[in-house]
């Protein structure tokens, strides 16, 4: 079997269920692959890991991948299991925020570490500066949603499948919150895609390997969509911290299924163009300065999906 290492963007959770299902259900074995899944963490930049040769394929958000590409790391998107974005900004209603127009002067919690690009391009589209003043005050939020619970921030970044529910679990009711999905605001950027280094694609053996990998992974994703509870249980099985709960993972899997639903694994060039346009429109400080070339390929998915 061929060895292949996959670097995840974050810790073991249902966000990556498709890969764990493929592993657990033997889809990778069937494809003659010996896949190692490396969970991520707060101090792991997947792009850096792949640059250092620590992984063959990585799960990454497109803004970070394109930014890395501009830095000279030739990442190529070979598949896009996530069709839509799960990112949103969740605000307390009692702050008076009813629409993005009210953001001025408010304090917003944001993830950094390569996850800040969608937020930054949204703000620049809104014409809000992100360094205080008449724009918005940005907080680097940690890994939890405490800032909104403690009223240290008016809004925090949340994923539909994860942090939003942390707020709810903390006792805040949904009608105390107002949420702005990046999808709805027309600023959605592509999330969890599969990326490899360019040179892999010029090697037929590697291409074959990646093809089998993507095919098996998508099989895993489709299985997970169809059997969300089982998929969540598989993820729990692989969580070596023993700290994840069934309730939370099942709920997360349900939400994830909504994001993967529209995708067969192949990148939709229209989504790509929209993402690039959004990243380019950053006003004085765009995330990327020129439209990238060759940042994606259908070679793998074309072969894999046949």
């Amino acid at each position: 079997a061929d060895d292949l290492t996959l670097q995840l963007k974050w810790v073991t959770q249902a966000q990556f269920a498709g890969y764990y299902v493929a592993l657990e259900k033997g889809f990778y074995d069937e494809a003659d692959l010996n896949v190692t899944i490396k969970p991520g963490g707060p101090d792991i930049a997947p792009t850096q890991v792949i640059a250092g040769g620590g992984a063959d394929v990585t799960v990454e958000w497109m803004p970070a991948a394109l930014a890395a590409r501009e830095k000279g790391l030739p990442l190529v998107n070979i598949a896009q299991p996530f069709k839509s974005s799960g990112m949103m900004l969740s605000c307390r209603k009692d702050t008076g925020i009813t629409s993005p127009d009210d953001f001025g002067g408010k304090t917003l919690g944001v993830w950094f570490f390569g996850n800040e690009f969608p937020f930054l391009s949204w703000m620049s589209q809104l014409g809000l500066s992100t360094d205080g003043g008449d724009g918005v005050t940005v907080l680097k939020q940690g890994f939890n949603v405490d800032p909104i619970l403690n009223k240290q921030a008016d809004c925090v970044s949340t994923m539909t499948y994860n942090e939003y529910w942390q707020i709810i679990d903390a006792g805040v009711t949904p009608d105390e919150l107002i949420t702005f999905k990046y999808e709805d605001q027309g600023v959605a950027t592509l999330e969890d895609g599969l990326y490899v280094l360019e040179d892999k694609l010029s090697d037929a053996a590697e291409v074959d390997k990646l093809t089998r990998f993507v095919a098996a992974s998508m099989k895993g994703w489709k299985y997970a969509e169809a059997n969300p509870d089982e998929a969540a249980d598989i993820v729990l099985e692989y969580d070596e911290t023993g700290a994840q709960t069934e309730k939370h993972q099942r709920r997360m899997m349900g939400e994830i299924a909504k994001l993967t639903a529209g995708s067969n694994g192949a990148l939709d060039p229209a989504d790509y163009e929209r993402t690039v346009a959004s990243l380019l429109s950053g006003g004085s400080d765009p995330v990327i300065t020129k439209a990238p070339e060759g940042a994606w390929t259908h070679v793998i998915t074309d072969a894999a999906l046949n």
Partner: protein
Amino acid sequence: MRSVLPVLTVIAALLALWYIAVVPMNAARAVEQAARSDVTLGTADLIRATMDMERPRLPSPHQVFAELWDSTVEKKVTSKRSLVFHGWITLGATLWGFALGVSLGIALAVGIVYSRVMEMSVMPWAVISQTIPIVALAPMIIVLSSSVGIEGRGVPKAIISAYLCFFPVLVGMVKGLRSPDQMQLDLLKTYGASGAAVFWKLRLPSSVPYLFTSLKIGIAAALVGTIVGELPTGAIRGLGARILIGDQFGNPIMIWSALFAAAILAGALVTLMSLLQSVTLKRMGMAR
């Protein structure tokens, strides 16, 4: 033994303080919760509510100890939900890092004591190395060690742990190896003793008390290093991973119990070192 009563007293005082602090820390959230279900709380109810919140800002002692009990005694030690299991993982990396750090620290100390160039070149940089935040280096350590083909994340963890551990050992051992006074050195000189004899018969034995002090500080530093290293190394297993997940999923009680587990582990390790120290010093006739 003489310190049992004082320690118990201090523990009691700290617990009391802790309980008292729980009320104001959690009151705001408790009131907010109650308001959602249209209840106004009396003082007694409020205090009771702050003691048993699901997501407290400051968990109360009994919550933490219940969690500690639940995740140690009630769980099989092989279960990934057992703190004993995670403590064991952390302990393993800590001991590797400790061994690595102590060896490095002692080797550098010997070099520094025997070579002026080493002293003047290395010592300032050893100090500087400790001003570099390890978390900034951690990703690079992981990437570099995986690109030179070291698989598994135990090794980078141990390296990070050794990075924090070697410095106190270095400083202590330099002091210790230099502790013989001029007369003790002169004595060996009058015997025409070789450099090796000076090391084995004088410098090393007289550094032993310093060595143990450093080992006690070093093992605690190694533990902290391992836990810090458990975040960037993928937060897979170990007490550090528990802390991270506890943080992300808004479970302060999990953080606190992992913190306590770490502190207890450190206490045990330091006590072990003390024991080793008193046995060794007694055998050397230096315990009075």
